[in-house]
């Protein structure tokens, strides 16, 4: 039974490709989401998933399907820089700036798209992606971004961690806090760009927040946090694809695969939440000596 649910669907080449893409994104999302959650950057990620939209549209208009990644990349880096600059005004808090940037950029994309005829189909593809039709080149692009981002995180991990927990200490040690923030923004933007065409903005934001948020409920130690987060990301992708395949093949119920992956991730979050709460309750009732 378990074999039929979890292994059999991936005998088809298109499902195998979708699984490869979901696994890669699970690893990438799992690692980057740790930085996102520790730095409380969930809203930044959400904003960046929307600000690349005009880039996607312009890239498509100028160079066809091949232009999408480059358009998205330009706008992602542009909005990451703009975000860092705009946050320098302490009068308006960062979250308000983000909301304005997000809606403004997204509206530019909508204005551009609304002048075309196949308006709603384009918008839908952008939001939900088409993970079942990802091709070899897109998988390769995701793999390249994964390697790149992991390399940068391996180099800057300690500095980013220090900046997340103690910005003043990090500045006092002579680190350029603004540059570190920019580096994280650009990394999140890269993940968005790598994933948006295949899985859509909805799945990207879930991948950038949920795995580490779930792992955080279970452990305080960084190494375990990264491991658990990657595990949640990969498992969520696998389970989600398997469930959506089964529902449509055996029960005639069409479930959007991207959305099913997100809900699988959220279900894992709920499990982590239950386990974390239960464990806290047990340790709460344990004698004080054992707790220490």
């Amino acid at each position: 039974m378990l074999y039929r649910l979890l292994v059999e669907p991936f005998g088809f080449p298109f499902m195998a490709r979708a699984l490869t893409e979901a696994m890669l994104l699970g690893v990438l999302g799992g690692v980057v989401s740790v930085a996102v959650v520790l730095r409380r950057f969930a809203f930044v990620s959400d904003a960046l998933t929307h600000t690349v939209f005009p880039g996607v549209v312009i890239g498509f208009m100028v160079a066809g399907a091949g232009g999408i990644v480059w358009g998205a990349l330009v706008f992602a880096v542009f909005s990451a820089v703009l975000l860092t600059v705009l946050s320098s005004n302490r009068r308006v808090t960062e979250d308000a700036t983000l909301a304005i940037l997000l809606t403004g950029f997204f509206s530019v994309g909508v204005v551009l798209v609304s002048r075309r005829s196949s308006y709603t189909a384009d918008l839908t593809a952008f939001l939900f992606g088409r993970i079942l039709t990802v091709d070899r080149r897109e998988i390769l692009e995701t793999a390249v971004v994964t390697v790149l981002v992991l390399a940068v995180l391996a180099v800057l991990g300690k500095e980013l961690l220090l900046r997340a927990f103690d910005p003043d200490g990090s500045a006092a040690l002579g680190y350029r806090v603004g540059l570190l923030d920019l580096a994280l923004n650009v990394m999140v933007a890269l993940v968005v760009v790598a994933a948006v065409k295949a899985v859509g903005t909805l799945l990207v934001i879930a991948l950038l927040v949920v795995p580490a948020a779930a792992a955080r409920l279970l452990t305080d130690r960084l190494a375990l946090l990264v491991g658990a987060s990657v595990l949640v990301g990969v498992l969520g992708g696998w389970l989600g694809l398997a469930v959506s395949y089964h529902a449509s093949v055996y029960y005639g119920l069409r479930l959007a695969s991207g959305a099913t992956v997100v809900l699988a991730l959220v279900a894992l979050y709920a499990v982590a939440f239950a386990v974390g709460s239960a464990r806290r309750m047990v340790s709460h009732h344990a004698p004080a000596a054992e707790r220490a």
Partner: protein
Amino acid sequence: MNVLAEGYARRALVEVLLVGGLCGVVGVHVVLRRLSFFTMSMTHATFPGIVLAALLGLNLYLGAGLFGVLLVLAVAWLWSRPGANESSVVGVVLSAGFALGVLLLSAQSGFTKDLSAYLVGSVLTVQPADLVVTAGVGAAVLLLLATLRKELVLGAFDRGGLRALGYPAALLDIVLLLAIEATVVSAVPAVGVILSVALIVAPAATARLWTDRLATMTVVAVGVGAVSGVVGLVISQQARVSAGAAIVLVACGCFALSWLGAPRYGMVHRLLLRRRMVFA
């Protein structure tokens, strides 16, 4: 201005004025309490409520409203847990709600059309009944905010003080979150997700750059919201682009200009000030 002479255009005008004004007032609290991300997540996460209501043939506002109340309670409960990370909680709730909506919708056919109306709204097809709902919700929310004004402002600036004075801080939080949720729900069917967030945050953030006084800030926010609505509507009619997007861009333009040129807190002024200090 004769583009606005048609009946549908006049209804759209009334709707953007109502929504702009209401969002301006609510936005002041959203900006002061740093609830922009929560607002954004409400717009996305009430989506399953709308889909469910459409499937069951119920009123869309009712579906979104009831689902939103559930979400507000869930967020408030998760926030109150020890060691909760507020922004991650909102991110999880946002993903979960929106994905659930998409899942429900994908099980149906005729998927794409409804969705884009939900995202960017269709202010030009607003019906008189929508205007009544917006006006009703607006009046209720304004009355609530006016009654609790002092407590909410105190909570925004000094939570410890609020609790020390014996006010039920957690309950006040939930009331404010519900007011924001009601505003979002009443605005979304007419003007869409993206526009409602922009109209709540951008006018209030713009006002914050011009004044320190709360009453003035509220008035400026209402003015910016209403003016953005009207100007955006006219531009969209002339240039034949999406009305919702045009309104958002006008509101964001107001913020950008103020960010640069506002008298005390604008970029230009701060740069001049720094130079004067260097040469002094």
